[in-house]
């Protein structure tokens, strides 16, 4: 017995693979139907967006160790800027850009922190958005990946393990560095070393010709979890000078355009113990402080 079926011609199927489509991050060729870059795992929708709009976004990287608060900061920032009363207006480019905001806010609303960002680059969230400053008519396109702290640490120790990180740092026009103020306040120095490694790696990636000139990229050094370390809010720069002397000196020597900020999202945290599970740190309420200011500073420098 014969049945009729519709079979696409092989030539049509092959055509999808035959048309090369470069990834916006690493520039390697992918197929038109690919959702993630097969080389660096960046979402191909960024490349599609760029081709449609004709505007290449500025890449802003967020550096910091695992647990420093990168995801919470970014998710809260995106949520705050997408509300009406914000100094900058933010519009997401594509549905994938909202995942970070959605995941973070859902978790915080349940009085939990979002789960740890996996090291695998194909699991990261990316924020591709248009930012409009009411004081400036020109909107600015930004691409902010939420990279995993562990992956950054591995890349800093063993370069080229994560090509996407190398590519992003190389293209980065603005940098936000997250440092856990709570840990720094109690004398911990592991984060300081990691951030110093990352900043050194960042300057290493600049081409030789550019390396002769001082690095003028805006770098916002954000002391996170400052809500539990109140003196950090009073004077973030002084706090960094006292508690993170190595990082302070590195920034003084190599970065011409850096500024210290303090931020906090939770008003208070505690440990929650649930029967049959590990104890987890939970926020008892959501009171964002110092979230928008570093970003506004960074965007205004990028606009110059």
């Amino acid at each position: 017995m014969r049945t009729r079926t519709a079979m696409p011609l092989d030539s049509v199927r092959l055509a999808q693979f035959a048309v090369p489509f470069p990834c916006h991050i690493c520039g390697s060729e992918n197929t038109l139907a690919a959702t993630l870059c097969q080389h660096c795992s960046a979402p191909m929708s960024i490349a599609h967006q760029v081709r449609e709009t004709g505007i290449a976004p500025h890449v802003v990287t967020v550096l910091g160790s695992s647990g420093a608060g990168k995801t919470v900061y970014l998710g809260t920032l995106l949520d705050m800027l997408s509300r009406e009363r914000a100094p900058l207006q933010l519009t997401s480019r594509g549905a994938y850009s909202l995942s970070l905001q959605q995941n973070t806010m859902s978790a915080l609303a349940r009085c939990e922190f979002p789960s740890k960002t996996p090291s695998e680059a194909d699991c990261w969230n990316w924020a591709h958005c248009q930012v409009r400053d009411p004081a400036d008519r020109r909107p600015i396109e930004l691409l902010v990946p939420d990279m995993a702290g562990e992956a950054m640490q591995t890349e800093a120790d063993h370069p080229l393990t994560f090509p996407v990180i190398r590519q992003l740092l190389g293209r980065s026009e603005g940098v936000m560095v997250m440092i856990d103020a709570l840990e720094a306040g109690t004398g911990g120095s592991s984060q300081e070393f990691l951030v110093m490694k990352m900043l050194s790696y960042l300057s290493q990636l600049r081409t030789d010709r550019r390396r002769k000139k001082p690095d003028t990229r805006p770098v916002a050094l954000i002391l996170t979890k400052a809500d539990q370390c109140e003196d950090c809010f009073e004077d973030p720069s002084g706090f960094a000078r006292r508690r993170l002397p190595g990082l302070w000196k590195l920034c003084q020597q190599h970065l011409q355009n850096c500024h210290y900020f303090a931020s906090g999202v939770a008003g208070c945290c505690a440990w929650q113990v649930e029967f049959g599970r590990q104890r987890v740190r939970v926020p008892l309420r959501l009171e964002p402080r110092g979230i928008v200011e570093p970003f506004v500073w960074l965007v205004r420098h990028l606009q110059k």
Partner: protein
Amino acid sequence: MSHRPSTRLTWMLLACALLAVAAAWTTPDVPLGAGGAALLVVTFVWRVRRRAPQAVAADPAAASAGATPPARQRVDAPRSGSASRVRRPSSVPRTEQQALIDQMLQQGRYTLLLRRQLVGNLDREQLEHTLELLHEAMAVVPEGNVRMAQPDWDAVPGHQEPAPGRLVHVAPLLLDRYAVTNADYQKFVDAGGYQEMPLWAPEIWPGVLQFVDRTRHPGPRDWTQGAHHPDLADHPVVGVSWYEAAAYARWVGKRLPTDAEWVKAASWPVAVGGVELEQRRYPWGESLDERKANVWSTGAGRTVPVTALPAGSSVNGIVQLIGNVWEWTTGDYGMWHPPSRSIQAPQPLKSLRGGAFDTYLEHQATCDFQSGDSPLARKHNIGFRCAISLCDLALWTAEEACGEQLVALDDARQLEREESLA
């Protein structure tokens, strides 16, 4: 008002003693005279010794009031009968005790004066003034049950289903209409509240010295030179720990509300069908309105005066229970959590209610939501208001002495009737 038996006995003894002395004087009977004189002395001593512990020991707040030594200073207040209610002419020079009472009234310590031990010291004018202050500053929260909701982590935030909870009975109380302001707290600081150790819990005595302002003077964290910013006099006091809030409350003769009392005042539960409690999500209704509460979405970004946003008052006229500043209560954080999910912190956290000007999520600024913080935390968005149980005030005594109908007293009487009917 009738005299108490002990007072009657005193007067009888005194009368007998005087009669005996008078009889001995007219008929030179030495034993009768000596007996009368001895009786006179005994009566006097007994009367003096009876009064001292009554006024001091019964109430530590009253003891710390500075209003004490009631045994020596007490002046018999008009008790009953129209003749005794004559208004004292203003030309009469005020005694030291009356000046002290006036000072306490100026300091907002009116509830201390309405304690059973002290109410008798007030003259009619002071009593009227005290009751007026009470009525203006505090609102009655009637007796009844309140459902203390358990946090429902699996629920979608903002859901309208009643959360599971525990029924708690609340006795009638008076709750401050407004949060304690900087101006109010300044009186406590100026009166040396940080040096009066009986006001402070003994476990915090070593820590009181750490409760200093920016210039190392005793006071809230953000003050300078022991004084608040002149523009923020009517803003809620912030930067005070739970212990400072409790000490202030004790100084004014009040206390911090319990968790259940606070929730009852805000959510105003009504028993539907006599069983199910209908509680409000916000004091004004079921949805957040930025014009009624100072939260993050209101956009103020800082505290506002305690009298602002009156549209957000509770049913009985308590202002800003939601928003502006979190409020300390006496409860512990996590006390309503299910046993399977407990909270660990270096020290037990105290309960906070109501949300603040920077509370970002709507469902965290509701009557139900409980947050917490260390009792030593002195944060920029945590303040407090005070409460007092109705049973701690001699309102009926005051009413009879005053001879006037006051709304607060009517409310209290109504509550008593309801209680007796129940």
